[in-house]
């Protein structure tokens, strides 16, 4: 098993890319040791966003469905996990998978009717669903604390002497989950399921005509994407330990969409890159809270004008030009 994994990685990935990944991994592992607390904090935010975009890429980049409610699933996972630990007294390690599964089920429930619609109709419907979730969270004072939010959410219970209330430990925890999620999605999109998703993206009617139950697989993609977002939500809740409805309003869903498309949908690594860069740029410019969005929007438009495939497209272009030399 290990052998073939390495072979697969080398063969399909290419030595250069593999080296790049290893270096990246080493850098990521070293950051808490050399960087300030603030940088670690920003890195954590970046990783959380990266997990959101990579899980969203499954739906948008690989299955071709544009939804605007990823932030809502993030929120459902976060609040569910928080409530399970706060009010039901469950440990984090139990609340985490339950939140993920619950969000998966909600995703299936919403996806089943919603995915009968296509294109922009589907997009707008999910937009509204997302907004509805936000309204429910905002108005369910007794359950979610409404506009006051939830506080004092416990950090994950430690083991082997690790204390997860520290920033560095949280960093490593989230990094591990991030890697697991990326590996999971990487294997998934290369599996038979992934091929079916891609076929649906390329031409849904043709996929249907060659025997693919497109309705079922679209719902599956939607649900997996949602469930993963729910897991990220849980991680966020127990790291930040404070939840507020505004974190899960439509702006978040829109940002996820934009980061994914900006980085390059359908590549898994593009969205991660997009999330990382955007998080950093916005954070660096936090002294100008609105202006940074203006700069960001302009940058986005400029990138799009040059390369519709996003950052990954630009990188590939540079790669091709380099090889020509």
């Amino acid at each position, binding site marked *: 098993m290990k052998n073939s994994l390495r072979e697969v990685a080398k063969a399909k990935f290419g030595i250069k890319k593999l080296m790049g990944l290893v270096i990246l991994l080493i850098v990521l592992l070293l950051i808490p040791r050399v960087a300030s607390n603030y940088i670690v904090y920003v890195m954590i935010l970046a990783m959380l966003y990266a997990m959101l975009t990579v899980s969203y890429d499954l739906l948008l980049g690989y299955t071709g469905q544009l939804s605007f409610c990823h932030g809502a699933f993030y929120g459902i996972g976060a609040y569910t996990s928080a409530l399970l630990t706060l009010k039901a007294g469950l440990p984090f390690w139990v609340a985490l998978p339950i939140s993920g599964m619950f969000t998966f089920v909600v995703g299936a429930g919403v996806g089943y009717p919603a995915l009968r619609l296509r294109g922009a109709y589907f997009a707008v419907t999910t937009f509204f669903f997302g907004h509805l979730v936000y309204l429910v969270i905002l108005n369910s004072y007794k359950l979610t604390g409404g506009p006051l939010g939830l506080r004092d959410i416990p950090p994950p219970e430690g083991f082997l002497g690790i204390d997860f209330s520290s920033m560095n430990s949280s960093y490593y925890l989230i990094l591990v989950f991030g890697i697991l999620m990326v590996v999971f999605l990487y294997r998934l999109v290369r599996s*038979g399921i992934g091929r079916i998703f891609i076929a649906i993206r390329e031409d849904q*009617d043709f996929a249907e005509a060659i*025997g693919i139950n497109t309705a079922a697989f679209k719902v599956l993609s939607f649900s997996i994407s949602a469930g993963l977002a729910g897991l990220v939500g849980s991680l966020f809740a127990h790291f930040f330990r404070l939840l507020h409805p505004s974190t899960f309003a439509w702006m978040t869903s829109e940002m996820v969409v934009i980061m994914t498309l900006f980085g390059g949908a359908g590549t898994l690594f593009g969205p991660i890159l997009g999330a990382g860069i955007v998080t950093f740029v916005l954070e660096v410019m936090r002294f100008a809270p609105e202006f940074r969005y203006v700069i960001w929007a302009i940058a986005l438009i400029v990138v799009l004008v040059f390369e519709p495939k996003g950052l990954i497209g630009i990188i590939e272009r540079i790669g091709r030009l380099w090889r020509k030399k």
Partner: protein
Amino acid sequence: MMQTLEVKDLSKEFGGVMAVEGLSFTLEIKAGSRLGIIGPNGAGKTTTFGMISGELKPSSGIVKFAGERIDGFKPHKVCRRGIGRTFQIVRVLPELSVYEHLLTGAIARKFSFGLGVDQQREAERILKLTDLERLKDVVAKNLTTVLKKRLELATVLMTRPKLLLLDELMAGLNLVEIEETLKLLRKINEEMEIALIVVEHVMKAVMELCGRIVVLYYGEKIAEGSPREVANNEKVVEAYLGKEAKNYARS
């Protein structure tokens, strides 16, 4: 037990217009079975295909395949029962290579997590059959229309159909390409024992390939028979060329 496709009294209404009305025919699913459906534009040919393959729900009537009623089935279910189709405007998976198309077809037929040797072998077999081996790594969007059509057919073949519905496969092909395609279709029909129903405007192709022809005109069947019978049928000539031509031919 001979398997058949049975279409009985099939009708489809679109906003007050009967696109197809009371269509009935039967086809045995075996080698040698090649049915052609011809008719002027708007006669209801593609609509008929749509009702058989599941894109459209008949307004009334029955479609039976191998003894089972399949009208109203979703397209993927119809495909799993053994009916494959190609589309009037060719459909492919633009960003995927030729080889990936066939692998996708294999997965579509029988789901599996990984891609094993069997699927690869079958893909290679179909590549050879449809003469696409040299192009196996070409991305579909870069193919010419003719090759796209062949790729579409090859992909559908991966789903191991027993009956193929081919919608205007010859459209836009030159004489050489038509000959090659006819050769391929005969091979598919005789060696792989896949029955064919062919909708066509290219008369030469239909007349040469099909043993039996159904002629549709404004949604109704106006003639059915061998190519010769149909070619000499007055009603058919009139439908295609108008009453004037019939009078002219007489005089």
